[in-house]
């Protein structure tokens, strides 16, 4: 089942005007920000379907940038996010794409700075809920209905064990887990869906673990 909580239906508390185009879009932006781990210097945002056709009216652009600035859906600073981002030196470009995607509310976000770049595809499925379907070329089957931890790590022995050991020590139960890699010995992605939201302390511990380069959390 896609929706597990009554608060997916009665909620979120958010800045208007559209749950899928504003709140869901903000959550896609924020997922990218958390995965990147810091404020990007540039953002190329490709919009598809209904996102491409109506983003100005819905503030989808404002919301995604708000997410990139780490704003939550109810943050009143959302309205001026683009101005704020520009003041902070972020270079922003939007592209209205014609291609048909599987989902009508799809955004592809490419963010980066001098050190790294991240590419993420997210969909907004309704009522403010968002899912990440692609990350740095890795296909994800992230349901969005459970809290999840995404770990980018080196493809080495022990990487998986070090992550799961930390979760076990915090008595966090793993519901589903998926590991994929681009090529042997290169970058790999671990997706761990868990039952409860993850505290910052756990994330910090994961960040310091062996072979793990990036950690992000997707809250329920």
């Amino acid at each position: 089942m896609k929706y597990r909580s009554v608060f997916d239906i009665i909620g979120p508390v958010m800045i208007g005007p559209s749950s899928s185009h504003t709140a869901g879009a903000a959550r896609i932006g924020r997922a990218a920000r958390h995965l990147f781990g810091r404020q990007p210097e540039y953002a190329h945002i490709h919009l598809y379907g209904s996102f491409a056709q109506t983003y100005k009216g819905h503030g989808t652009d404002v919301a995604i940038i708000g997410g990139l600035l780490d704003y939550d859906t109810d943050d009143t600073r959302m309205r001026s996010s683009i101005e704020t981002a520009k003041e902070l030196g972020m270079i922003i470009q939007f592209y209205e794409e014609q291609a048909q995607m599987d989902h009508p509310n799809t955004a592809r976000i490419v963010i980066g700075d001098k050190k790294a770049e991240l590419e993420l595809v997210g969909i907004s499925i309704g009522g403010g809920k968002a899912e990440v379907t692609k990350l740095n070329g890795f296909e994800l089957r992230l349901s969005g209905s459970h809290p999840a931890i995404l770990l980018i790590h080196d493809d080495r022995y022990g990487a998986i064990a070090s992550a799961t050991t930390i979760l076990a020590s915090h008595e966090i139960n793993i519901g589903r887990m998926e590991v994929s890699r681009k090529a042997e010995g290169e970058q790999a992605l671990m997706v761990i869906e868990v039952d409860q939201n993850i505290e910052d302390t756990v994330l910090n511990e994961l960040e310091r673990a062996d072979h793990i380069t990036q950690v992000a959390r997707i809250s329920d």
Partner: protein
Amino acid sequence: MFKNVAELVSRAETESIQISEVMIRQEMEVKQLSREQVYSQMERNLDVMEKAIEDGLKGVQSHSGLTGGDAVLIQNYMRNHEPLSGNLLMDAVSKAVATNEVNAAMGTICATPTAGSAGCVPGTLFAVKNQLNPSREEMVRYLFTSGAFGFVVANNASISGAAGGCQAEVGSAAGMAAAAIVEMAGGTPQQSSEAMAITLKNMLGLICDPVAGLVEVPCVKRNAMGASNAVVAADMALAGVTSRIPCDEVIDAMYKVGQRMPSDFRETAQGGLAATVTGKQLEAQVYGDALD
């Protein structure tokens, strides 16, 4: 987790509890939270709804200038006239409008189930409140009951206008509100399900055609009509009227209609009212030039 309305109603009947209680217990179990945590999170949502209505009734204007001020007009009318459709109904309408006007003005609202359909549930709640005099706890329960029915729609059909048209948004919201009114008025779980079915049946096929792509025209007034639809359907269900088509089958029909709806009618601002002469003119006014 309950998969459909039939399971939801039967769980309430078997355990002799309200729909809201089924929802609260499920939330506690799924999220591993205490009753107090679940309750207080919902109470915060109630506070946001109340504040949005207050703001809307003072009068707000959207950035585009397309919406705002209608909630005030309706309240003034109610003070000076006896509304033909009755005070409670018009009160619900004005409060639904107030919520969506605040939403259009980029104010803070609680999505129920979405932002574009955020007016139906609180609008009816704060109108029915004046007649039924519920406790604060019963008002919070109203939101759990609405949420329980919305939960089924979201998992078995859709609550997104881009995916299923306005029937999936305002249609779902109105049905959720109808079911919650029934519980607050002392009706049975089955009667809540009848009210949801009657409401949704009358919203089937409703397209999502926002002028200039904004959640303003016709969204604000659709919430007004969704709220009134909910109040009337709740009264019918409380009177003992039943839906010949069971609630779960109505939800399924809504899903299938949504799947076959052309993309012009699913929040792309390409069809319906958005494609009228005036709709296009308004779009040009808002953006300086047309979106496409």
